[in-house]
């Protein structure tokens, strides 16, 4: 077997010269840290999206053609609906494993975008976007935009009542752009709303155009990362010019491969056990129908929240009114993504920092960036929660208007507060000497006066030697007097059995070694101290007397 593999690889090496590249690739070093796994979640959920998506394309019909439904879902039988909606019902009720695939696809999309956002926060707060990684930051920003756009379009494809309302809102948002809005909307929708073109067009964009772009940019994202090598957190022996971690083969490849299956498992569990987007309850989209309380998927929530919070101002310029929707739904995301993509250059302008950085900042080491980031993030989190004003008002039995105004105030007030608090916290941790260091195991000792003190042990594997004097504590002295009054009973008492010397009832003035107790690993109380034996394992005086009497 090994011979055959060797032969094949030799054959390939002689023709393609793969050995050199393969060796360096297999020995590639990846630093270990939980925060470096966040981007991987996004990557793996994207792979799940591809697989489940291909399955769905086998049954989905991208057509607005009205047909009469004769499928297995009784509450909609006989109704006129688009072929797109009917085929989604077919996938949900009649295709074997169709529903679990559709639900996995939807959960995977939610997790995909969430993982991208968390990954972005990690890169931002650790300053991993600094030279030489600015290009990869821009690629990542574009990937986020593409993921959100494709999520929204995929959400619209079933052509149910709720997603149809979403498309209606999207049409109005495009229309609100000054000068070109109506032309752009008609161009995109192939005429006035709703028309017959948008579902087939969305389908092409969703399954071909955007996924292809994502694959290409993802390859670039990973390729650049591979070429530039991974960042790492500061630690002894780690410098700006090395990478410390696990080798690709076999360690890291197995970890990453296993993590792919774990990601797929979590998505499959959600897809099989938790219902998402029950389109059969929403009914087919008919433009004159509307359901109250329409929310988009979570990643569009901040835009929906911005639409809800925007006051009904009508701003007039040059004799024309700029539609109100333009500000929260076009200007805000436009500014957001522009500032996001250009952030490495904006920060460089401020800090004038032109060094190569392969060591991450810890968030607390850079108070300004961290607090600014937390402030801006808070702004978007408030917008995100604002998209559920009606659900919150209904859940907490309060007025919708009250909730709305609360969010408007929070949107202005909370970001500076959050930023300021973060700034003070980061400043505070800078003054603490061993902030963030892992606590070592200690031995807790007690003096005769009842004062406790801790002795740090240097090794956590084998209960290290700690030098301390064993002393007779007052309770024990009292106990000994009780016990020594009766010589014959002494042997029956548990403490004398467990004492190392055995001659005077567990009282020892010799040096003892701390041993691993049965209790918690942090609070180690030596077992040979009387009344010891774990945190609460010691027997009380009265109990011991009672035991002695019983015998």
């Amino acid at each position, binding site marked *: 077997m090994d011979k055959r593999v060797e032969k094949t690889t030799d054959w390939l090496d002689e023709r393609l010269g793969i050995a050199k590249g393969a060796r360096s690739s297999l020995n590639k*070093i990846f630093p*270990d*840290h*939980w925060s470096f*796994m966040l981007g991987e979640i996004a990557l793996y959920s994207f792979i799940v999206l591809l697989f489940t998506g291909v399955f769905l394309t086998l049954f989905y019909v991208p057509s607005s053609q009205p047909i009469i439904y004769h499928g297995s*879902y*009784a509450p909609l*039988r006989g109704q006129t609906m688009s072929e797109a909606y009917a085929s989604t019902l077919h996938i*949900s*009720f009649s295709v*074997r*494993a169709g*529903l*679990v695939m559709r639900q996995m696809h939807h*959960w995977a999309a*939610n*997790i995909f975008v969430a993982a991208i956002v968390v990954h972005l926060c990690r890169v931002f707060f650790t300053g991993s976007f600094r030279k030489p990684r600015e290009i990869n930051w821009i690629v990542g920003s574009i990937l986020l935009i593409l993921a959100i756009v494709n999520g929204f379009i995929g959400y619209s494809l079933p052509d149910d*009542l*709720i997603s149809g309302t979403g498309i209606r809102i999207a049409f109005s948002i495009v229309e609100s752009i000054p000068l070109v809005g109506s032309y752009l909307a008609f161009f995109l929708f192939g005429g006035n709303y709703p028309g017959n073109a948008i579902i087939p067009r969305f389908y092409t964009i969703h399954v071909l155009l955007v996924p292809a772009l994502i694959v290409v940019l993802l390859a670039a994202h990973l390729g650049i990362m591979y070429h530039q*090598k991974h960042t790492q957190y500061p630690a*002894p022996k780690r410098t700006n010019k090395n990478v410390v971690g*696990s*080798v690709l083969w076999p*360690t*890291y490849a*197995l*970890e990453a*491969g*296993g*993590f*792919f*299956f774990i990601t797929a*498992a979590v*998505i499959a*569990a*959600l*897809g*099989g056990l*938790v*219902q*998402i*987007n*029950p389109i059969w*309850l*929403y009914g087919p989209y008919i433009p004159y129908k*509307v*359901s*109250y*309380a*329409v*929310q*988009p*998927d*979570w990643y569009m*929530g901040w835009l929906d929240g911005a639409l809800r919070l925007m006051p009904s101002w009508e701003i007039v310029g040059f004799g024309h009114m700029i539609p109100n929707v333009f500000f929260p739904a076009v200007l805000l995301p436009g500014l957001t993504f522009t500032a996001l993509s250009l952030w490495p250059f904006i920060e460089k302008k401020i800090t004038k920092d032109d060094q190569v950085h392969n060591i991450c900042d810890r968030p607390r080491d850079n108070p300004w960036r961290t607090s600014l980031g937390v402030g801006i993030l808070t702004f978007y989190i408030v917008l995100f929660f604002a*998209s559920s004003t009606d*659900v919150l008002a*209904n859940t907490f039995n309060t007025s*919708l*208007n009250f909730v709305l105004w609360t969010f408007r105030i929070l949107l202005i007030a909370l970001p500076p507060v959050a930023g300021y608090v973060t700034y003070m916290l980061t400043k505070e941790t800078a003054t603490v000497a061993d902030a963030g260091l892992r606590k070592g195991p200690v031995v807790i000792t007690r003096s005769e006066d009842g004062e406790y003190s801790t002795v740090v042990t240097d090794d956590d594997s084998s209960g290290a030697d700690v030098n301390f004097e064993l002393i007779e504590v007052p309770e024990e002295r009292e106990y000994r007097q009780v016990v020594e009054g009766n010589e014959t009973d002494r042997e029956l008492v548990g403490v004398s059995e467990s004492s190392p010397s055995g001659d005077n009832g567990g009282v020892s003035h010799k040096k003892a070694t701390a041993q691993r107790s049965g209790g918690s690993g942090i609070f180690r109380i030596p077992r040979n101290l009387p009344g010891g034996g774990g945190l609460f394992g010691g027997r009380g005086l009265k109990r011991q007397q009672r035991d002695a009497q019983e015998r």
Partner: protein
Amino acid sequence: MKAALRGVKSSRAKALGVSVFVSGVVGCAGLFAFGGGVASAQSHYQSSSGKEVKSVTFTQPDRPPIVYQKPSSSLIPQGRTLFIENCSTCHGIDAVGSSRAPNLQGLGAATIDFWVYTGRMPLADPTVQAIQKPRKFNRQQTLAIAAYVSSLAPGGPAIPSVNVAGANISQGESLFSTNCAACHTITGVGDALANNVYAPSLYGVGATQIAEAIRTGPGNMPRFGNGTLSNAQVADVVKYVLYLQKPQDPGGISLGHVGPVTEGFVGILIGLGGLMLFGYWIGGRAQR
């Protein structure tokens, strides 16, 4: 860059990698089979119940979709006593209303039955929208009050009895999404409307009360009279609302039928959160 350093505890890391890989594969296969099995079992069960629904959609021409019945006039004395005890403080002894409460004469038995039997009356706080409470009167007492008030003046619908079995659920869905979903939401869970007004949840409401609400328009709800919805159409809507109270959930846990809000929280907290815990297991903390 210099050649990279190998990991210090490479054998331990390798063991972690292997265990992650194995548990990932096993977990993935197991959960996929389990989830798919649950989902397909549920859809199988649901499709068989769907056939039952089909078998009862035969219309029964001999029974009308809704029969309106006046409560028996023998209940009027009991109703008068109950009304004077519980309602007359605000509505007046002859139900002509006051500065605090509206005139009830000529509203019909259905209105009285709806407000009293859903627990909205007697009212706890007249300044806010009446809430659905545990009902104070049993069926007979409610009918008695309705009999008394409707005996004071003619007019208004009597108490409807809906032939749910003969109704068409698909028609009901179409009418519900056109007329009701704009406030009660498409899944009927209800929601907050502007300024302290809300559309109540439709869960746990009986067929008669649903028909009464449609016909009489309680509170902010519009009244759907005979010219807007025929008796057959009202019965269709009632049937669909009853279905919505326990709809088919072949996909698993329903998350309250609230839609993307709860789905987003599950996706982020359980989905991403769970994966981040696994990531913490694999990646570990920073070494110092």
